[in-house]
């Protein structure tokens, strides 16, 4: 039985990784077209780095990711704390509201935000679609993920630890700072890393909430690919995949810490 399971599992893993590996391989391929490997080269990477526009897109992407991650991590952590510690009337409603960004198709999220910005702009003349709106959009789904991760971590926390702190004279704030926060920090960090990679990779929501001049890398990849794949895109993709994996590994290590 186990052997069949194993066979099946590894077939699935092969399926999951094959396309990515093809791209990585082709990013080093000397020839521009086709799949025959004609030679190993870093050319495409070099071209990538000397492309000014791409550097601009990279900067945009990073700005969006960093800012949105910071905000969503803070908001999400607080929200998780509140949800776990308190009982109140609309608790369930809030919980389900939280699940919406996770389950809903990106398109719906994207256009709902587009509509929101449009309505607000009609009313007060601001904001225009730009990096700012992208950031606002990203935070909106990142919050959900961060909250879920931190909440999971919080529920593992032994409540008697906080009681002990209070018994020894710590005020609520001190209890939080000295006991609660350090203990959930791994969860907070991995939530933040999760949010970060979600922002880096987001396409659909960004597509609807970006304005001219606020292109991010995923948007660039999309318009590029519509014209046809190219090795530079492969190179860019390989780098992005690499970074994502790195961020993921870091996140896992943090989650594992004092788990």
């Amino acid at each position, binding site marked *: 039985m*186990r052997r069949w399971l194993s066979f*099946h599992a590894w077939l*699935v*893993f092969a*399926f999951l990784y094959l*396309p*990515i590996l*093809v*791209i990585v391989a*082709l990013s080093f391929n000397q020839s521009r*077209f086709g*799949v025959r490997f004609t030679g190993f080269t870093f050319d495409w990477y070099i071209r990538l780095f000397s492309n000014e526009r791409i550097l601009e897109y990279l900067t945009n992407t990073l700005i969006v990711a960093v800012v949105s991650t910071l905000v969503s991590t*803070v*908001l*999400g952590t607080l*929200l998780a*704390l*509140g*949800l776990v*510690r*308190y009982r109140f009337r609309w608790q*369930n409603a*809030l919980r*389900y*509201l939280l699940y*919406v960004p*996770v*389950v*809903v*198709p*990106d*398109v*719906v999220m994207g256009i*709902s935000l*587009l509509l*929101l910005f449009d309505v607000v702009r009609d009313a007060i003349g601001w904001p225009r679609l730009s990096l700012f709106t992208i950031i*606002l959009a990203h*935070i*909106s789904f990142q919050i959900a993920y961060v909250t879920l*991760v931190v909440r*999971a971590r919080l529920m593992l926390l032994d409540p008697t630890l*906080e009681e002990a702190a*209070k018994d020894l004279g710590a005020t*609520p704030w001190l209890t*939080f700072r000295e006991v*609660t926060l350090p203990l959930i920090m791994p969860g907070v960090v991995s939530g933040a890393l*999760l949010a970060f990679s*979600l922002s880096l*990779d987001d*396409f*659909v929501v960004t597509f609807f909430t970006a304005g001219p001049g606020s292109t991010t890398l995923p948007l660039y*990849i*999309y318009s590029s690919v519509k014209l046809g*794949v190219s090795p530079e895109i492969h190179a860019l*993709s390989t780098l992005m*995949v690499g970074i*994502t*994996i790195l961020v*993921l590994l870091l996140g896992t290590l943090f989650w*594992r810490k004092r788990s």
Partner: protein
Amino acid sequence: MREAATPWERLRQMLLTIGPGAFWLVLFVLIPTLIMLVASLMSRGSLGQLVPPFGLHNYLRFFSDPLFVEIIGRSLWIGFWSTVFIMLLGYPLAFYVAQSRYKEALLLLVVIPFFTNFLIRVYAWIVVFQKEGLINGLITAFGLPPAELLPSTFAVYVATVYTYLPFFVLPLYAAVERIDWSQLEAAYDLGARPIRAFWEAIFPQTVPGLFAGFLLVFIPAVGTFVIADLLGGGKVTLVGNLIQLQFGSAQNWAFGSAASMVLMAMVLLGLWLYARTQGEKGLDKLV
């Protein structure tokens, strides 16, 4: 965590923690949905923007015009079969990982594609399926004529399964990891043969995970537009594409909103069903 002295203090603390996050969610999730709802009831202005009169005409059009019904049908069909296939692929995988000595490493292996840029994962299939792509490269190496795999519905299926498979495995894995195997032994002890015993004692324990996984796959799969856009050419139009067009070239925001609301309604229905049958939802991302 914070045992406040007075009810006011408690309220203050509560607002401090939940307030900002809840406020954000209301402002950027709830309200836009409501706006979308209202928009769906409006009509198209000369430039495609939203004008009165209000009415259900968009919905009527959506559900009666055969063109759109076909699109809905195709989206549901592709979404459904992709999900079924994902479940078939993912169910054994979850067990394999949960029972392995290296389960954390394997889980990571499953999760990595989940976090990789969605676009990259989709366009990778272009590379695989295109005329000068991987598959054709292999086929022509055997002297056979190249196959026209792109654009096609088949490619859309493959890419959909590929893209959403990790979404299914994660919640299912959470359920599988918690399985009480002593129930299987009890079933054996009481005379059930292996397959029967699995069905009676183990499978029911995975149902919550299956349900969650199904929701997390089916709904996004139905609403996706990128996959059909990149791999289906003009041939495959799904609801997602339809919506995107309404906000793009077709310039009919009202209608697009209506279509979106339909998808949103599916989401809410799914969540409600899940809440009804499962109670506490454990959508813990095991990163």
